């Protein structure tokens, strides 16, 4: 079965985590026109929490390797959905579109990122190396490391 592309490996996901987290804490509320509102505080807290648990995730950009990467992805999903739900739980959505649209937009962005992220940290390898090794009529290690050069000029 053909597999859909999941090109975001754990390193790239980490880059996204820190970039998004930093942006949410700093420039995003102003860019979204919600500076000074309840929404701004909610989004800043979400960004800070996201960056914080990224630092304790067991992936290449984690500082302390504590939370398994798959658990991190699960927290991402739960956090995204929670952020989207917040304006509707608190009732602030009634105050205007800018009080719920940024939350929902960020949730969709996070879910798209998760859909493109490879949770296995092994890429998409699905071959049978053992069968290949058994059937191989060459010895790769011997071929590479032993014997002389392939060029006569180098042999001379």
């Amino acid at each position, binding site marked *: 079965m053909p597999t859909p592309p999941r090109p975001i490996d754990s390193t790239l996901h980490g880059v996204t985590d820190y970039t998004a987290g930093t942006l949410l804490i700093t420039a995003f509320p102003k860019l979204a026109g919600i500076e000074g509102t309840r929404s701004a505080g909610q989004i800043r807290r979400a960004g800070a929490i996201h960056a914080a648990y990224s630092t304790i995730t067991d992936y290449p950009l984690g500082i302390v390797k504590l939370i398994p990467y798959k658990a991190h992805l699960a927290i991402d999903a739960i956090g995204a959905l929670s952020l989207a739900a917040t304006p509707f739980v608190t009732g602030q959505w009634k105050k205007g579109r800018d009080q719920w649209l940024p939350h929902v937009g960020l949730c969709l962005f996070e879910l798209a990122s998760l859909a493109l992220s490879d949770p296995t940290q092994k*890429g998409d*390898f699905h071959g049978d*190396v053992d069968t290949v090794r058994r059937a191989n009529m060459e010895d790769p290690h011997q071929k590479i490391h032993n014997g002389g*050069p392939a060029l*006569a000029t180098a042999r001379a």
Partner: protein
Amino acid sequence: MRANVWSGRNTVQVENVPDPKVLNERDAIVKISSTAICGSDLHLYDGYIPTMKRGDILGHEFMGEVVETGRRVEKLTVGDRVVVPFPIACGNCWSCKHELYSLCENSNPNAGIAEKLFGHPTCGIFGYSHITGGYAGGQAEYARVPFADVGPFKIEDDLTDEQVLFLSDIFPTGYMGADFCDIKGGESIAVFGAGPVGQFAIASAVMLGAEQVIAIDQYDYRLAMARNKAGATDIVDFSKDADIVEQLKLLTGGRGPDAVIDAVGMEAAHGHGALHAADRVKQATRSETDRGHALRDAILACRPGGIVSIIGVYGGLMDKFPMGALMNKGLTIRTGQCHVHRYIKPLYERVRNGDIDPSFVVTHRLGLDLAPDAYETFKHKQDECVKVVLKP
């Protein structure tokens, strides 16, 4: 017959398909004795080349025995052992007459598709999507070879298949990459990518008289092959230090190599930082077709006034191309799909004379039925895999 067919992204299957037939009186049918998986096959495998259809037979590096010829085939007879160049050339058009065989104007029945993408059509190629004509490839038991008097090259001695098979593509391709560098003796040449084509580019640069040939890669076993077998004088392992440009300056007295060869192509893996991250995401979402890290670094590394030789395959569009570096440093770019027919005879003579044994790149020899696992092993660099030869 059994053939390895494309079945979707990251999927190939060996299936029973109809045997090829002579369709044109200038065709020949070749019973394939050996075929190989090329690095550029991985661009098809990974789904980056459009117009592939399920059931398309892959493979453009193959050789074997002529078992049938069309009425107007004059230079081949049944029983001839031949290596088949991957570009299909008519031998008669303006391009072929000027030895630009991979630009043949007559061999691509889907010229309109190529013309939309590239501005002009280019040649037909075995097993390389409908952009290049939709020809069935050679990872199969038999193949139909058009223009049989022009392409197939007769092997008339007892060299093994592995010694001559690569005359179909990667040896001439690597050689053309080195030939583009205008080596006169004493130059410093950097080769990006120590895969099979890179290995032959390295060996060819050595054969042509370069004094320093630097192999660049991230896999230690490929760098070992470049040094032990292909004749590289220096290696750069960018898994240890990603600043390739600086390392090349250090190796060349601060000037940079006289010429650089890009033997990597559109799926460059060595990028780092935000630009690489952006490239990966854009390519995955098909808003950019080609990842250009190797080419960007090659352009930045090349000394002013030098030559950038591009033999890695690219398909479409690349962002963040360092046009300023290219122009202001006065670099010359030389590139193209290899004009195999131009090089095959002199390179065959070199093999016969013992100047080089091309079989050095073969790390895996497997039956055709293992093609799916072979593709995965090759793609993911498992088991020190450099080059896979399949036996139908």
